[in-house]
């Protein structure tokens, strides 16, 4: 069947097959043309999209780690981690080559609306510099206070309480007050707060325990879960 493509179908082909061939070829041509259109657009916008994504990332990072504190090209100085750690990419902030802070991506899969993605800075002193939600699908007006842009309390947003929290404290500390831990939550939406608090505690403890190994790893490499603990 495929050998006949592009040629006039010989007369011995059954009529039913011939009548099916023309629309099939038509569909194939349309598919080719519009796939080419998409491929062309993808190629034409790729660099701009990468630049815009990077700028957006830096906007979030600037909120949790002031630019004046480090002098290296932060986004270029990255390593990766993988499960069982709930840490994805890690960037290393240095000043004059000396370690200043780690900025890493973490996530919680137990949000009310599914996955919540976070970005966190962890100072060399083992304390969290700040945390921001970079993606979530929590209920608008209820659980979305985890994102300070949606938090009704602009003066003292909920996520601000993690700034200065000690990552080396035991997991029992990294629980919302309702469950006997140390962190506030808003009445009516405990699931979102619980998920964020747990993910932050777990990931920060993981990163803090492997701090020196993470700073020493060559850029672009992968940090193992069983990297040297302190």
């Amino acid at each position, binding site marked *: 069947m495929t050998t006949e493509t592009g040629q006039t179908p010989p007369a011995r082909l059954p009529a039913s097959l011939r009548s099916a061939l*023309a*629309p099939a070829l*038509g*569909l194939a041509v*349309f*598919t080719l043309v*519009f*796939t080419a*259109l*998409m491929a062309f*657009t*993808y190629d034409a*916008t790729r660099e*701009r*999209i990468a630049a*815009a*994504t990077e*700028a*957006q990332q830096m906007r979030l990072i600037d909120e949790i780690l002031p630019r004046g504190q480090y002098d290296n090209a932060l986004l270029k100085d990255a390593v990766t981690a993988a499960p069982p750690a709930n840490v994805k990419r890690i960037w290393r902030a240095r000043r004059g080559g000396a370690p200043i802070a780690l900025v890493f991506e973490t996530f919680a899969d137990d949000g009310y609306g599914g996955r919540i993605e976070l970005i966190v800075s962890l100072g060399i002193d083992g304390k969290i510099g700040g945390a921001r939600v970079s993606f979530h699908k929590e*209920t*608008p*007006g*209820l659980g979305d206070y985890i994102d300070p842009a949606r938090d009704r309390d602009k003066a003292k947003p909920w996520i601000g309480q993690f700034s200065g929290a000690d990552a080396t404290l035991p997991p029992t500390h990294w629980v919302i007050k309702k469950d006997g831990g140390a962190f506030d939550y808003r009445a009516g939406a405990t699931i979102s707060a619980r998920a964020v608090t747990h993910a932050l505690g777990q990931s920060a403890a993981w990163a803090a325990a492997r701090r020196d190994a993470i700073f020493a790893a060559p850029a672009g490499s992968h940090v193992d879960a069983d990297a040297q603990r302190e």
Partner: protein
Amino acid sequence: MRIQHIKESARNGLWRQNPGLAQILGLCPILAVSTNIVNAVSLGLATVMAMALSNLAVSALRRWIAYEIRIPVFILIIAALVTVLDLAFNAYFHSLYLLLGIFIPLITTNCIVLARAEAFAARNGALESTFDGIMMGLGLVWVLALLGALRELIGSGTLLSGIDMVVPGLSAIQVFGDDYPGFLLAVLPPGAFFILGCLIAAYNAINAHRAARILPEPVPAAPPQSAAVD
């Protein structure tokens, strides 16, 4: 394209065959994004672009689209154009892209786009079809704007929240003051159904009122034009 066509297309799109109120097509984005005006109008305008482009493409290519395969070809065209739009938004309007997130690809599944390709663009010239797409899209935009405004106002007591993502420097209007407790139902999906239901009821009431006024009572012979629309 005559003035008569322009008027007819505009009247159909904006009122008589309004996608949101009369055809009730495209409920998916209507209910999902209309939690506030900014989201609703942004996605509405993206839909206008998608409909104008898809109607233009379908009407320009209609001679080459075999009847049997027209639906797959329409969907192919719409999906490809929406993908192009999605990439363009990501590259050139990145903050708006973050706001609309997953909803731009969903324009593909908005059946009003396919409905206009099949019912109008496949039978009319490129200019008329593009205009029809724009008018149908604008018909959706004003319904989305009204629905978004009502849900935002009732749900959180604000208007235009998130406007700073589109026009930096502007901020939301607190209509009911800071201590408005909020009415969550309006923001949740059920609230979208309730308020859309009220809008459709108002639309039908206005149409019924008009029909009653236009209908000259002593002439039962000619059935009124507007009654057939429903």
